[in-house]
């Protein structure tokens, strides 16, 4: 399966809205060309091209081991390059995956970051307070950093990178290790903070929903290569390769004349009048619904979410599809 994809079904209005984000970006403040990094003899990054622009939030998505954190560390200049070059027109600050804080107060931690950055002593208190307030963490200022919860430590961790006001901000999984409620609360808190016309922001995120919520642009990394790069709506709805599609949740495949249609569960629905006949192979309960694994009459495998109680395993059903992405053979 290769060749340019074309999209089936009506184009969702969301895609149009998200396309508008693409033009926000300004001049490239960090440019990486052909970035190659080797670790232990193996190539972890293979010729990555990436340009980060002011005012733009770029999310890097990819499965475990794809090289996301390596890419971020390489962009930060923390790794020796085996190939390619890196050009940065400004000061860069990165926040690691671990919210490691010094054993002192929260405010002192942010002030310490400002001291490392070279901010004069007289400005530190005010800037630290401002950054903590922006993240809704001002009431934590006097607390000892070692006594914070995971979510609170994350806020302080982000506050100290925001406080230094870099030209390029790199965040490695800013929501790692948080439970879902704390995660969504923090996501909500940073969604506007991340976007700043003076700054290019790049973050490695764990799932598509985070990329969708936060980013103007999504870069999908698979096996050390960029396989998709564009506005979230386009990348998430029209992935350019079957590999990227599979990673982005297009787990259903339907072979037809001259190609394969790849579908998300949301693109498939049970419909007694639908054109596709299939048999239920497996069912798994998910929140408020049942996920069905379906064997269609032709070649392929489909997934869909049906309202409870849903058909039993072995039942013959009819389906219709809307959307999805087609790859020619």
């Amino acid at each position, binding site marked *: 399966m290769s060749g340019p994809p074309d999209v089936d079904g009506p184009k969702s209005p969301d895609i149009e809205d998200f396309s508008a984000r693409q033009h926000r970006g300004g001049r490239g403040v960090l440019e990486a060309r052909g970035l190659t990094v080797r670790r232990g003899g193996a190539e972890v990054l293979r010729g990555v091209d990436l340009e980060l622009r002011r005012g733009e939030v770029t999310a890097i998505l990819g499965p475990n081991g794809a090289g996301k954190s390596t890419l971020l560390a390489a962009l930060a200049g*923390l790794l020796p390059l085996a190939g390619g070059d890196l050009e940065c027109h400004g000061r860069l600050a990165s926040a*690691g995956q*671990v919210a490691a804080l010094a054993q002192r107060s929260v405010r002192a931690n942010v002030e310490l970051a400002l001291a490392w950055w070279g901010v004069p002593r007289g400005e530190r208190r005010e800037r630290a307070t401002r950054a903590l307030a922006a993240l809704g963490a001002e009431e934590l200022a006097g607390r000892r950093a070692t*006594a914070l919860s995971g979510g609170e430590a994350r806020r302080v961790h982000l506050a100290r*990178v925001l406080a230094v006001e870099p030209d390029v901000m790199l965040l490695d999984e800013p929501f790692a290790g948080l439970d879902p409620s704390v995660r969504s609360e923090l996501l909500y808190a940073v969604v506007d903070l991340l976007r700043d016309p003076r700054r290019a922001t790049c973050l490695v995120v764990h799932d598509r929903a985070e990329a969708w919520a936060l980013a103007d642009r999504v870069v999908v990394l698979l096996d050390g290569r960029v396989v998709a790069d564009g506005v979230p709506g386009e990348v998430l709805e029209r992935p350019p390769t079957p590999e990227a599609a599979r990673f982005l949740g297009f787990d259903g495949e339907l072979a037809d004349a001259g190609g394969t249609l790849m579908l998300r569960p949301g693109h498939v629905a049970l419909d007694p009048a639908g054109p596709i006949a299939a048999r239920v192979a497996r069912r798994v309960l998910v929140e408020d619904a049942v996920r069905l694994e379906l064997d269609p009459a032709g070649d392929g495998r489909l997934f869909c979410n049906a309202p409870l109680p849903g058909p039993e395993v072995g039942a013959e059903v009819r389906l219709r599809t809307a959307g999805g992405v087609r790859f020619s053979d």
Partner: protein
Amino acid sequence: MNFIWDGVKQAFELIFEGNDEVFDVLGVTLHVAVGATLLALFVGLPLGLACGLGRFHGRRVLLALLNAGLGLPPVVVGLIVALFLFRGAPLGGLELIYTINGIILAQAILAFPIVGAFTATAVDAVPRALFDQARALGASRAQLATLALREARVGVIGATIAAFGSALSEVGAVVLVGGNIHGQTQTLATAVLAEVSAGQYGTAIAFGLILLGLVLICGGAMTLFQYAGDERDERRFLPGWRAS
């Protein structure tokens, strides 16, 4: 048993009558211990920081040498230092043999591996991510070193206490390099040795008690400083908790 009691009584008389001789020895002891500890910190802290923070070739060798240095035999170190400091020896021109500064040098050689090895271990235990984060935000080497020392302060102050304690109580190297000259290079520990040799058990016990008191006071004061502001002291049992 009587002579022990007599010794203790004599000790208290010597201490509380403000005996000049005792104060002289006490002064030399503190001078040597403070000087040797400062010199050991000056050499040992950078080595410990380099081993704890750095990732360079030979780091493990240096760490192994520092750890081995914890077991340096004082008499042998004293002998080697003395051999180098004797008039006519390579470092004889420094005129350090039988001087307080000579003793400080020998004691510092014994104490710097303590400072270095303990500091390296303490810094190594600080989460690496914190140093990576500091580097990522542009921290200079000096700022990293300060951060490491502050984060590892309990271990670093522990190393200082150990170095100071060893410098207070050492005998072999002090006698060999300092000559145990009464009123000049005699410390409390070597005074005990001299008094015992002369059969003056009372005075020996007096010096011994003063030395013990000094070790306790200094160790206690430094421990208070070591754990100042540590929130672990504020932990309390949960109210309503009962052993079942």
